[in-house]
């Protein structure tokens, strides 16, 4: 027997994932997250450091100064970004680097894009992909993602939309696994009625549900990273959105009153998950693509 089917991370992929996690936790840990909340604007120094570390140039060939790895590696990196709630138009800048937009790969340029009728970080962007004319600012629900609304949806979508959806799903996955961890940590330490609240089955089952959704979404997101198939990506998006949105809600519930405070990080996960879910466009589109696939081998199927 040679190598068996190996739908697991390779040693290199593990190393990359751990390396990115270490970098991001070191450079954008809890303290930095809280500081960012009180400091409007994008941290350009951090952005350039991300560029230097290869975050935006992951998939560019080494000959062009890139890291020369593939979509699975990019997905692992974005998952880590989602975990720590790294702010900024990460997906748009990463995809701009692929499209050879000058300065994107190195982190010298901040590139944003019109996605789902919205533009993130417009005032900070050096380059905007898509038509943002007439964009009006709105008071963003996510304190770490300034938003503009584009009146007529921003015209035609760029061709790399499926990749944007996949990398966004990877961020959702990272956030979902983080909220699961936060809930479990809290449930093990917070005591009521003389015992950790995690000993109560109602709390336990919320946590188990979170892990169930993370595990299923992870398989879907990683598979889509391997195949890059639009149907796999649509499925990954639905599962990852569900894991992130539902996970943040349950995490909030497990935290009790603390979960409703500004001081807790839970609301930041929930709000960012709302923004990301919107970034990938209407959920109905993904659902319709997947419904249409069920009739794909039928002659004359239209929807």
């Amino acid at each position, binding site marked *: 027997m040679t190598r068996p089917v190996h739908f697991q991370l390779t040693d290199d992929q593990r190393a990359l994932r751990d390396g990115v996690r270490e970098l991001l936790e070191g450079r954008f840990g809890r303290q930095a997250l809280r500081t960012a909340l009180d400091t409007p604007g994008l941290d350009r120094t951090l952005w350039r450091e991300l560029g230097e570390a290869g975050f935006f140039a992951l998939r560019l060939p080494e000959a062009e100064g890139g890291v020369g790895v593939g979509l699975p590696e990019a997905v692992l990196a974005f998952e880590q970004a989602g975990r720590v709630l790294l702010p900024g138009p990460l997906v748009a800048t990463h995809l701009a680097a692929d499209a050879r937009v000058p300065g994107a790969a190195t982190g010298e340029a901040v590139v944003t894009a019109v996605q789902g009728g919205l533009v993130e970080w417009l005032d900070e962007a050096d380059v905007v992909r898509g038509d943002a004319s007439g964009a009006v600012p709105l008071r963003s629900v996510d304190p770490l993602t300034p938003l503009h609304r584009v009146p007529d949806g921003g015209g035609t979508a760029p061709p790399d939309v499926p990749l944007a959806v996949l990398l966004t799903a990877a961020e959702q996955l990272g956030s979902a696994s983080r909220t699961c961890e936060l809930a479990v940590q809290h449930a093990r330490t917070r005591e009521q009625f003389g015992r950790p609240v995690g000993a109560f*089955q109602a709390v336990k089952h919320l946590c188990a549900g979170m892990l169930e959704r993370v595990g299923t979404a992870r398989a879907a997101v990683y598979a889509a990273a391997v195949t890059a198939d639009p149907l796999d990506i649509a499925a990954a998006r639905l599962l990852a959105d569900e894991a992130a949105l539902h996970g943040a809600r349950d995490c909030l519930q497990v935290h009790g009153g603390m979960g409703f405070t500004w001081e807790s990080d839970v609301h930041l996960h929930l709000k960012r998950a709302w923004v990301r879910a919107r970034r990938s466009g209407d959920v109905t589109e993904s659902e319709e693509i997947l419904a249409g696939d069920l009739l794909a081998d039928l002659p004359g199927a239209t929807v």
Partner: protein
Amino acid sequence: MDLTYTPEEEEFRARLREWLAAVLPTLPPKPPPEDWPARRAYDLGWQRMLYDAGYAGLHWPVDAGGRGATPTQHLIFLEETEQAGAPYVGAGFVGLLHAGPTIAAEGTAEQRARWLPPILRGEQVWCQGFSEPDAGSDLAALRTRARRDGDDYVVSGSKIWTSHAEVADWCELLVRTDPSAPKHRGITWLAMPMDAPGITVRPLKTLAGSAEFAEVFLDEVRVPVGHRVGAENDGWRVTMVTLSFERGTAFVGEVIACRRVLGELAREARKNGRWDDPALRRRLGRLNAEFRALWRLTQWNVSEAERSGGVPGAGGSVFKLRYSHARQELYDAAADVLGAQALDLDRPWVPDRLSSLSYTIAAGTSQIQRNIVAERILGLPKGR
């Protein structure tokens, strides 16, 4: 991360496909669902064909008469047989997937030689006598008593929900041999012949109207001590060893089958006009995402088992939890497609909708799975 197969695996798949194409047309017609003896004969007949072709006990170790196949080969086998519409393991389930592997792992050479070959050749059916009226989720609370008398155990008590009891030759039986020990430590695993004097089997009708499980009453049944697998009072561990034989492949065929049903539902909806309802289309689209994800999760878990040399990861409970619920949603969606016909037992999917209701109960309820996930994977404190 990789989703392609090796040339060896592809060759295994091609040979299997060829064989299935040749033999499936030679199968006798499927027996009616209520004719259990005929179903037993049909299921065992299929097992015999597998045996003759070298596919029996694919995932069993070689020294137990199996083929020692990798988890991935087993995955391919289940995938291909389901896709080709081959018979399901059926009455062979407990023998091939639970009692057999237990004997292979824990039995003596003599016990293996006696019980394993007839399972592989499709000659004997086993059933599982674990649950009792007062011991379901809390299986270790079982009370069926076995008292030593010379070279025999004398067993009295009752079992319930025993699938295929009526057509079984053997029963893998959990009994209490030490009532004074802590509950997990006084249990013993016995192989009980179902024709022994003192056994009464009373079929139970399921909500689907069929009689696939039964109550089994045991009145002073003599089981030779030589039928004990593992040490006396070590039966809990012996049984759990086998539960961990599960290598992520438990639901492969079923997930494939669900994906096929989903396609059929879409076609039916298009035919009867329900497809024009966007809410229904979206529901089916979501289910497509769900079963695609479950298929990927299966591949992930199998690869994990492969990497760890057959030891399953924690993925099993997560998978079962998600899958059993998804399957129920699938058949609820089927009812939505069928409209008024969803109330007609003669329509396809209606009986399946009924049997899907057992998925969140059998083999560990969803609540128990959540306890397992929370306590063993997430490390939350044990309940009272």
